[in-house]
């Protein structure tokens, strides 16, 4: 028996900001979930199960927050699952929810991911004072910056490319009312003049710290037929993992990322991603990861990704728009960031992306990664249902 086709019929997110002091965590997730239900014109009673994701519990210090959030998400008396795969969690949460529909376990599933970074300390939560270890590292930027340098060495990319990505993503964010950073006076010169934090990564080439939640309603063919607005159809979805550190690990282009993309393309019948996919919403917390992931995901040959960025191909009006929403560089509620990528892909193929809509976006990839470039989750969504 073939899988049930999975459709996205509702999407909701909060206006992402530095601090939502007016709401509890329950109030935050409720806002996104309510908007997704409104978009789908459904009520709590229409939801069969809830799948929720966030980054480590110790970010906000609420252990197993899904237990306390059950009533805010209408999950009382229904199955509720929690997913955790570090920064990729928003993506893998959506995929776990999608698989419940594809397997015909549930007809309609609410999936949601969040982070309230203003009540959290991600840097501290990830840098515990482990005995016998030498404290050396200064945050996630310090972890990823050497890998960016390795990419620059390997590809021969000029050191101007990172700023181009940041300038593009921040301008895209101006068209997205939900994006956290709205830097109306952004210029390329300002990005280039921003301080080097972890050389070669500049301040303006890093992501902000946000409070936000994102929710989606996933449903089966029958649910999609009742949907008031065009659904997005899942054409392929996959997750892959690998250890943080091992001999032979390629931090610039991890094997797990390549394998994950290949699996998605196989499911969706994508022979040439550069030709067959119209836009990509990828997880770029530091600007240089755009060219790196373009290669890892097969949109460019190894060492060639930066050329797409430099030539303007990834601009909103380019041939392969990347991070139309403004990306992680403009909005980063960590646990939700992966789902925001998946949701943006779905918004695009539904034609619901507003001012950051890409013309004729029929197949769009959503991508997330997490940990030390070790967890990957991706989906490809389309405006037409998968072939029977």
């Amino acid at each position: 028996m073939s899988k049930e086709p999975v459709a996205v019929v509702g999407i909701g997110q909060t206006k992402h900001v530095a601090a939502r002091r007016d709401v509890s965590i329950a109030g935050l997730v409720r806002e996104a979930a309510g908007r997704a239900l409104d978009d789908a014109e459904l009520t709590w009673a229409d939801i069969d199960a809830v799948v929720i994701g966030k980054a480590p519990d110790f970010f906000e210090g609420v252990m197993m927050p899904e237990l306390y959030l059950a009533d805010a998400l209408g999950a009382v008396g229904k199955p509720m699952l929690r997913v955790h795969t570090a920064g990729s969690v928003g993506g893998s949460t959506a995929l776990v929810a999608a698989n419940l529909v594809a397997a015909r376990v549930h007809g309609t599933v609410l999936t949601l991911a969040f982070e309230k970074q203003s009540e959290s300390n991600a840097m501290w939560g990830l840098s515990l004072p482990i005995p016998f270890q030498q404290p050396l590292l200064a945050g996630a930027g310090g972890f990823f910056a050497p890998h960016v340098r390795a990419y620059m060495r390997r590809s021969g990319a000029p050191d101007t490319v990172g700023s181009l990505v940041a300038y593009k993503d921040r301008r895209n964010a101006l068209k997205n009312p939900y994006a956290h950073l709205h830097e109306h006076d952004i210029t390329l010169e300002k990005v280039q003049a921003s301080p080097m934090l972890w050389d070669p990564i500049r301040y303006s080439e890093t992501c902000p710290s946000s409070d936000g939640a994102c929710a989606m309603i996933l449903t089966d063919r029958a649910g999609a037929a009742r949907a008031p607005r065009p659904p997005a159809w899942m054409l392929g979805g996959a997750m892959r993992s690998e250890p943080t550190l091992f001999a032979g690990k390629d931090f610039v282009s991890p094997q797990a990322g390549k394998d994950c993309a290949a699996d998605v393309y196989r499911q969706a019948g994508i022979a040439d991603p550069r030709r067959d996919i119209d836009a990509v919403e990828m997880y770029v917390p530091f600007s240089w990861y755009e060219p790196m992931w373009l290669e890892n995901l097969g949109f460019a040959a190894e060492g060639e990704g930066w050329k797409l960025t430099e030539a303007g191909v990834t601009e909103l009006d380019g041939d392969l728009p990347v991070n139309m929403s403004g990306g992680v560089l403009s909005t980063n509620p960590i646990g939700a960031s992966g789902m925001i990528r998946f949701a943006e892909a779905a918004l695009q193929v539904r034609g619901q992306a507003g001012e950051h809509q890409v013309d004729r976006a029929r197949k769009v990839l959503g991508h997330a990664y997490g940990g030390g470039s070790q967890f990957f989750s991706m989906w490809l969504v389309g405006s037409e249902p998968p072939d029977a």
Partner: protein
Amino acid sequence: MPEVLKAPLVVEFPFTRSLGPVQGAFLTGLRERVVLGVRTSDGRTLVPPVEYDPVTAEEIRDLVEVAPTGTVTTWAWNHAPRRDQPLDTPFAWALVRLDGADTALLHALDAPGPDAVHTGMRVRVRWAEERVGAITDIACFEPYDDSPNGGGPAEPAHHTGEFEDPVTGIVAPARLDYTYSPGRAQTAYINALADRRNVGERCPSCRKVYVPPRGACPTCGVATLEQVEVGPRGTVTTFCIVNIKAKNLDIEVPYVYAHIALDGADLALHGRIGGIPYDQVRMGLRVEPVWTEGARYPDHYRPTGEPDADYDTYKELV
């Protein structure tokens, strides 16, 4: 086998919490000696109040004031109170259904011993002297004999939930106490470092040398037992220049944080580069450790003066 290292690890952080309208009113109420509940759509009163109806999932905001007296619905005796618990002498953890409420609130009950506690007993709030808008504004519950009055449940009264100077956030400290052990392989590595030797382990299957060793090969999934001394010299495979000072690190900025492949190791370890201006550090730089007396790890690595390693010799380790 030498003894495996162990040490305490305390993880502690003062988390902030935005309360939202319902929890904010509840905690502000406690500061004013008012206990608030919330009415659900089926007419029950929940204390402590919640923001969303557990039955219908609807947002609920109909606040009511309940009595500071109630009935124990169940309890457990706490023989040995731990730090930061409400009382420092033995007490009962009790679920108390306040008069007017349909659900019970968890708190401490001050009683002389377990024989003095029973389900169904009447109790009342003992307010804290200083109240700030926190659950600890209820110092604890205490036994309360109201039999002359009958002690019938009071009818909860509507409350706006509005107070002067409302509490909108709290600080909720969390603390975890662990005993951390790095395990057999890293203990051996750390013990060898005391003699300023870098001892890794080779995987019997893929032959890769791990420094520090983990006791197992993450790729092959087999135990690693063969010890291999590597270094002390190595090659900078990649690096970044850190320009922001981390709160927990006593290192002056800028400094170079580098991945260093020790000669003979199959993946890089991390270290700081010194003895060379930060802007002259490069991939391929040959380095050696610099030790300070009594330190567990090299303080930093400095150039050996050898010619730089050719990129092809270390590119698989980048």
